[in-house]
């Protein structure tokens, strides 16, 4: 756990560095001390709920397929990709970098969602 938090901080530092925001190290320490969150997205009736999620860096999101039909969770920008999730199967991804992550079900592409990491 200690290691993943450090990684998150490093990634955030890189991201902010590139953005040229020049944020001081004090802010990183504060965010590193936050307890990592976990949040759930449920797949019901061919839709992701909630469709949009805004989370702090380091959050783990877990998707659960509650339909009788298999679905996938695939990042539009190829950041993450689940295996095929049959009924009640889960997929988790930890968001260690700030950004907007649109995703969809590659089997039923009308199903779309978004995770905003701040």
């Amino acid at each position: 756990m200690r290691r993943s938090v450090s990684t998150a901080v490093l990634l955030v530092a890189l991201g902010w560095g590139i953005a040229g925001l020049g944020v001081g190290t004090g802010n990183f320490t504060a965010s590193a001390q936050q307890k990592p969150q976990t949040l759930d997205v449920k797949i019901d009736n061919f839709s992701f709920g909630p469709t949009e999620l805004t989370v702090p860096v380091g959050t783990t999101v877990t998707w659960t397929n509650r339909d009788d039909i298999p679905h996938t969770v695939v990042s539009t920008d190829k950041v993450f990709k689940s295996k095929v999730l049959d009924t009640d199967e889960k997929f988790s991804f930890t968001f260690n970098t700030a950004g907007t992550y649109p995703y969809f079900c590659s089997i039923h592409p009308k199903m779309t969602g978004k995770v905003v990491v701040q």
Partner: protein
Amino acid sequence: MFEKKKDELLIDHNHDGVDRRGFLKCMAWAGTGALCVIQGGVLKSYSLSNMPELSAEVAGELSFVQISDSHMGFNKAANPDVVGTLKAAVDKINGLATPPEFMLHTGDISHLSKPEEFDTVDQILKSASPKDVFFVPGEHDVLGDDGKQYLERYGKNAKGAGWYSFDKKGVHFIGLVNVLNLKAGGLGTLGHEQLEWMEDDVKHLKDSTPIVVFAHIPLWTVYPEWGWGTEDSAQALAYLKKFGSVTVLNGHIHQTMQKVEGNVTFHTAASTAFPQPAPGKADSPGPMKVPAEQLKSVLGITDVNYVQTQHALAVVDSSLA
């Protein structure tokens, strides 16, 4: 939008003296199958439940059967016995008055692309009287590997991701793949490479050649909100404009529907596994649970006949009930 009726749908075209137009008649809902007869390049469709009286009328030079969406491996409440209903479909096929020469399977052979699911379907289909089966993949057949396994099993003589064409008794058949490389928010996709191949494939054919196109996701926009359509199907259909008779056979939506647009007849087959709701009539297109005793009435096969001298194709849907 196509209006679906519970009972039989009859569309009569006026005979124009050139004998290019037959008539279409199909069970709009009850089918796990339909009989298609090609007469004079136009497809005629009959309910398999009326087969005894129709058999003499529809007997043609070429008869084949379409089955679809067997979803082997599915075991939820909507149908805990997809093996049993596929076997019932095979029994129905073996009982047809005119033995079909071959079968088309329009995809979703398996539920989760597992090798044993494909094996089971192959095994069951061996007991069908027609020995040749021509497949196209559904989205459930290409899970996890972008269709690699599907291609190894069913696409040995196919091009690209599994598309191909063949000729039977003067009818040109084109099997298309529209379940790969799907884009977020989009519908089924054929893609540039396949479209180019198709344009080339039909270029040399005479305008009078009857064309049968088969693919998993409908090549007409049934209900885009549920993804029931194909992004670039208009381009594919544009290549077929010169032909007097085009029949498009699809699956995916687990219910029979038919639409006639100019020279093109669109037809979707029922599933052999479970029904899905009519467009927009439920929260999602997921499996629809019906009382157990009604299940076989909403599953089915599709039988197609081609009668050269009468210039028409006939499609007959029939339920497994």
